[in-house]
């Protein structure tokens, strides 16, 4: 249960006047993303999946946002295009190199693969990566600090906060065309926006949110 915005689910507006057909198609496609690797190998996927779980630990009690699957889909779609930062290769290759480097680093430091590390050890390794500490040949084209800041965090954030589950979690109004909004002022919200719980078990907010459509 979402404690901040109890009972709010942005998808209850899917067939209402806040969603147009283009939005429904785009989000439907995202919700139906295949849950198995197509761009990455099984080994790469295992590391990516574990990294995603540590960057955004998801609460129990609801289906998780399939972050690894969404990144796999993105790299399949545009992993060879876009902008690359020197000295990193194009995004898809950069991901593959970085996942391999992280795996090698885990084996070197702890004698086991990254996916097998406990939470604390995994987080410590990710923190080291963020600080740019790992060195050596595997990291040559994917400097750890640079990759972490410019590829790893943005791609995981985009996958998670581009998903309706996350929109509901943070009380975002979500798609809003053609209806838009009327009440723009401080502490005001439209009937089709999420109400925030003012206290634990705020029934008023819950009742409001159940009627968002």
């Amino acid at each position: 249960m979402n404690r901040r915005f109890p009972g709010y689910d942005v998808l209850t507006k899917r067939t209402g006047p806040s969603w147009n057909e283009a939005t429904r198609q785009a989000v439907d496609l995202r919700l139906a993303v295949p849950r198995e690797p197509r761009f990455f190998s099984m080994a790469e996927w295992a590391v990516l999946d574990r990294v995603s779980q540590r960057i955004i630990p998801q609460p129990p009690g609801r289906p998780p946002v399939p972050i690894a699957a969404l990144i796999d889909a993105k790299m399949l779609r545009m992993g060879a295009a876009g902008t690359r930062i020197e000295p990193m290769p194009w995004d898809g290759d950069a991901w593959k190199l970085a996942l391999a480097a992280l795996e090698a680093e885990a084996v070197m430091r702890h004698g086991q693969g990254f996916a097998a590390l406990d939470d604390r050890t995994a987080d410590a390794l990710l923190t080291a990566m963020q600080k740019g500490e790992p060195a050596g040949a595997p990291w040559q084209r994917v400097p750890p600090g640079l990759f972490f800041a410019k590829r790893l965090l943005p791609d995981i954030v985009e996958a998670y906060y581009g998903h309706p589950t996350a929109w509901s979690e943070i009380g975002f109004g979500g798609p809003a065309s053609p209806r838009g909004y009327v009440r723009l002022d401080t502490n005001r919200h439209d009937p089709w926006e999420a109400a925030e719980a003012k206290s634990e078990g705020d029934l008023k907010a819950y009742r409001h949110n159940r009627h968002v459509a």
Partner: protein
Amino acid sequence: MREYSLDDEVDFLIIGTGAGGGTLAGRLAEMGFSVVALDAGAYFRPLDDFASDETEQEKLYWNDRRIVDGGTPLQMGGKNSGKAVGGSMVHFAMVSLRFRPEWFRSRSVLGYGADWPLDWREMWRYYREAELALAISGPVTYPWGPKRPRYPYRAHEINSAGRLLALGAEALGYQWTETPLATVSAPRGKSPPCVYRGFCRFGCSTNAKQSTLNTWIPRALAAGAEIRDLAMAGRIEVKGDRATGVHFHREGAWHFQRARNVVVAGYAVETPRLLLNSATSRHPHGLANRSGLVGKYFMTQSNQAVFGRMRDEVRWYKGPPSFTITEHWNYDDRKDFFGGYCWMAQGPLPIEWGFIQTGARGLWGEALRQDMLNYNHQVGLKMVGETLPDAANTVTLADEVDQYGLRIPRITFSWGENDRKLIGHAISEMTRSLEAIGAEDIFPQREDANHLAGTARMGFTPEDSVVDADCRSWDIPNLWVCDGSVFPTTGGVNPSLTIQAIALRTADRIKAMAGRGEL
């Protein structure tokens, strides 16, 4: 739509249909010239094609291969590129501001950068024309600068985030006003009033936004111009010192369109790239590049921000992100840097807010997810600041090629000493403003940039510039550049209105020159 054959030698072949090329196409067609305008992107129909979705709408950005490097490599994407008929105006934040008069003579009056070969009084007239063409919604009285008439449409009501900017400015003793915005506050033709859906920067799905796509492009079509979408220009053909047409890729093959004049309007990366990729034995360093300045003096604008959290619910996702503004005319004060800046209210959507949290604060893990729960309480101020022209910041050609087999651009950028001082000043002022309204957990976003400029600067002589005041290249008289590339300096406000004003002026100049047989 009228269509021309490849053998028709059209009066003007325009490459790019954004603020520069789209505006110029409309005006030249209305003047009776035959016009074909190419765009590498698609001709979207907003009502059918635009989703309310940050990810899906990445289809509006330039996502072809590019390389960035330098001391502070630029983030390329939504804030500084567009690939669609209408250009990046299709997803611009609609902020429509005039330059300060002094900015056109920053070298001689203010002591930095370079002078423009344009007179601000003449620009004032073209600014007005651009504001009328887009029915800008703005205040009755604009607080800064020489007098100007009231804006064509009334200002929008202000959202909570905009009110908080106003409160902060008043606490600091600064003036503020409603931001002049290119989205209508009342019906206009087929455009309904803005419904404040908040996805402005991802394309307006109701057509309330007045962009090139639904203003100048329809006017161009009505006047007989052809808009050729999904057409990537690869090389400008030159015979001696005259352009004869353009090779472009469309529907899987290369074609050649003949033209009497060619206008490059691809913005500060694609414009120099095309000129450089069109080199011949007679023009070995690229077209219009005898000065060696094509691709040089590449500029961006500083777009740093300060964010904080309010006890109140702000819900900054509603409405255009920048309802209010305070222009900081800061070189009137005693400052240790050149240039100016303004700041505006903000409303990042969830993914962008996540980028800021991870990028500026390095947050991840449970700390990130918990902090994101405060989304509806966040408030922020974001600057648009002047970056000084520096010959070391460049667009050059890399050896790698894109999907068309064309060499891709390498974009090299580092903030300069002056830029950092200006940014530091803005961050401290914006921080004071947020403190004054009682925001908590205030933090700065120290790295961000947006609009581009430079790389084909206009000037006074063939030695100091690529084009003259009329956007005509010095080297090849029937080759023109009409976009933000021609800016010698960037000024400290959003550039789109200035690009449009220059395009309108260029059209008038072309008409006058054509009348005298000088084309």
